[in-house]
């Protein structure tokens, strides 16, 4: 069964964009426990201040093969500080209770598999999460997880990528719920993306296959990027850029970053 709560939330937030003076919804990203849960909390407060719509909480994994250098380091340090799956769920629970944005889990499949797929999703549900983004889990391997998710009304966030054929996009669309994470380009997180006609064309290809709202990720850093996404899709995903700002100068820098991005 689809996750009507998330779906309704997103369509409400989308509807309110003009009134909020925003070209697109925004999803931000936080690596649990990096630099620390206290820092995470402060980041989330800033994000909340700026009216962020969705937040990905990344559960750190020792082999973050789809991440770029900054997140790789974040994953590693979180783990070496002892951040556990328990810690992440506890934190998520605190976050979802305190803030109004909706939260999805982001992470690698082994974290889920090792915890047990049902247990993991039950805990996700209980912690107030609404979905999960698992970049190393292709839909062919996700049958069981998606079944449990449907049962628990959690959204499996599907990724669509520029290398997918139309047929493949159609297959992916069948599994989509909540929103689709469209990957703006090849490569890993953390480097800038040219917002150009190729990207627009790719987003259009995705839109042709699904009615589910589209998030666009990888390398979004400027207000122009967000405007571009607003024109073609629904949700701008802010990952590395926000973490970079935080690392540069904490709350002040992060506020500065969001100010240029959103106002």
């Amino acid at each position, binding site marked *: 069964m689809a996750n009507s709560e998330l779906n309704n939330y997103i369509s409400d937030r989308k509807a309110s964009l003009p009134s909020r003076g925003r070209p697109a919804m925004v999803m931000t990203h936080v690596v649990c426990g990096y630099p620390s849960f206290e820092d995470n909390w402060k980041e989330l407060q800033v994000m909340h201040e700026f009216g962020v719509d969705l937040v990905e909480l990344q559960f750190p994994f020792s082999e973050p093969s789809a991440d770029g250098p900054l997140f790789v380091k974040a994953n590693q340090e979180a783990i070496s500080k002892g951040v556990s799956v328990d810690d992440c769920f506890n934190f998520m629970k605190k976050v979802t209770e305190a803030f109004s944005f909706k939260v999805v889990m982001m992470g690698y499949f*082994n974290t889920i598999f090792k915890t047990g797929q049902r247990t993991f999703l039950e805990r996700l549900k209980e912690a107030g999460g609404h979905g999960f983004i698992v970049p190393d889990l292709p839909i062919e391997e996700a049958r069981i997880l998606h079944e449990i998710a449907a049962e628990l009304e959690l959204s499996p966030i599907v990724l669509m990528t520029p290398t997918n054929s139309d047929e493949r996009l159609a297959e992916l669309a069948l599994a989509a719920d909540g929103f689709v994470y469209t990957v703006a380009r090849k490569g890993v997180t953390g480097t800038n993306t040219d917002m150009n006609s190729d990207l627009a064309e790719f987003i259009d290809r995705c839109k042709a296959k699904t009615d589910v709202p589209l998030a666009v990720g990888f390398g979004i850093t400027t207000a122009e990027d967000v405007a571009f996404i607003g024109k073609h899709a629904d949700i701008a995903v802010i990952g590395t850029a926000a973490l970079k700002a935080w690392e540069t100068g904490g709350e002040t820098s992060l506020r500065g970053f969001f100010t240029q991005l959103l106002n």
Partner: protein
Amino acid sequence: MDLFDFTDGREGYYGEYGGTFLPEILHSTIEELKAEFRKAKDDPTFWQEFIELMQSYSGRPTPVTHLANLSRKLGGAQIYIKREDLNHTGSHKINNVMGQGLLVKRMGKNRVIAETGAGQHGYATATMAARFGFESKIYMGAIDVARQRPNVFWMENMGSTVVAVEDGQQTLKDAINECLRDWVTNMDTTHYVLGTACGPHPFPEMVSWFQSIIGREAREQMISSTGKLPDRVFACVGGGSNAIGLFQGFMDDEETQLVGCEAGGFGPGKGNHAARLAYKDASVGVAQGMKTYFLQNDDGNMLHTHSVAAGLDYIGVNPILVHLWEKDRVRFEAVTDAQVTEALKLAMRTEGVIPALESSHGFAQAVLEAEQMSKDEIVLINMSGRGDKDIFTIADALDDDHWKKFIRQKAEEYGQ
């Protein structure tokens, strides 16, 4: 038994192990690879081309050698070794790499990337790239780069760029992650030459297929030299490519025991070794593209591993072998670093052969068992590589003082 007949199950699965766990962006790349591989596998001229290439470039077939002295000394089974050490570049890794090189040519790509731990696979890939005229980049954990400089030296001299990976434990698994990152960026031009029978489907099948050349040759050679099949066949298991390569030759010979020899390192206990199946410290997980046994903690994060043999020091293991282990077709054993260096010394002194530290694991277990067997029984060990390229590691393992002195003198000669 056709391990790769997936008609009754899911493609790329061996029992519940295997699969293709990759980012969606690689979907079409892996489909292309699967298709090209399937076409090649169904095309008898491809295998012929592969065989001819291996003959003319790498010196195949490699012989089997009877170790009469060692057998006599132990007083038990007759010991034979399959001489993958005699391959060009000094190990079985070249079989896989040249095979993938032919596929890359068919796919019209011009760039290859590879991970390497011990350096053997990187060395083989750099060689293949030079020979095929491909651009190549080899990812290697920074710690491995530091300790395996000889291999790096040759890779660079053959025109490869070697990248020292500074993430994670800075060893093999991190190099694999970095390869995946390169691949999701450059898949249009680039093939990822995975070095062992691990990773996402079709790699385990593909690597096994190319490595099956070992077992095909060996079975025939054993029959023609001994008139019968070996009673037990031993191979070291890192990722598991030389083992599955040899074992395939004897898969249907039920009387022939197949024994996988893992890195026991300092002995049982998490973090002390790299034995995924022989010890009880590993569990099933999904990482690096596949579902198999991993040395991991309860949260699914990977453990540190240890082995005197860099090429066996890996967190995961060939899913095909796990399946065969569960089906009791392959037995798994682990030998410790100390047993391995003793076996190496024994091989050098009694037979004039220098097995790689990896291969010495097979020797160590075989020696233990051969001693208990009767004189008319036969064991075959896969000598997957030669040890002379690992002189730094072996000299360290043997704690050789002359060697240290020599290195100090060299350093002085080089000045600051």
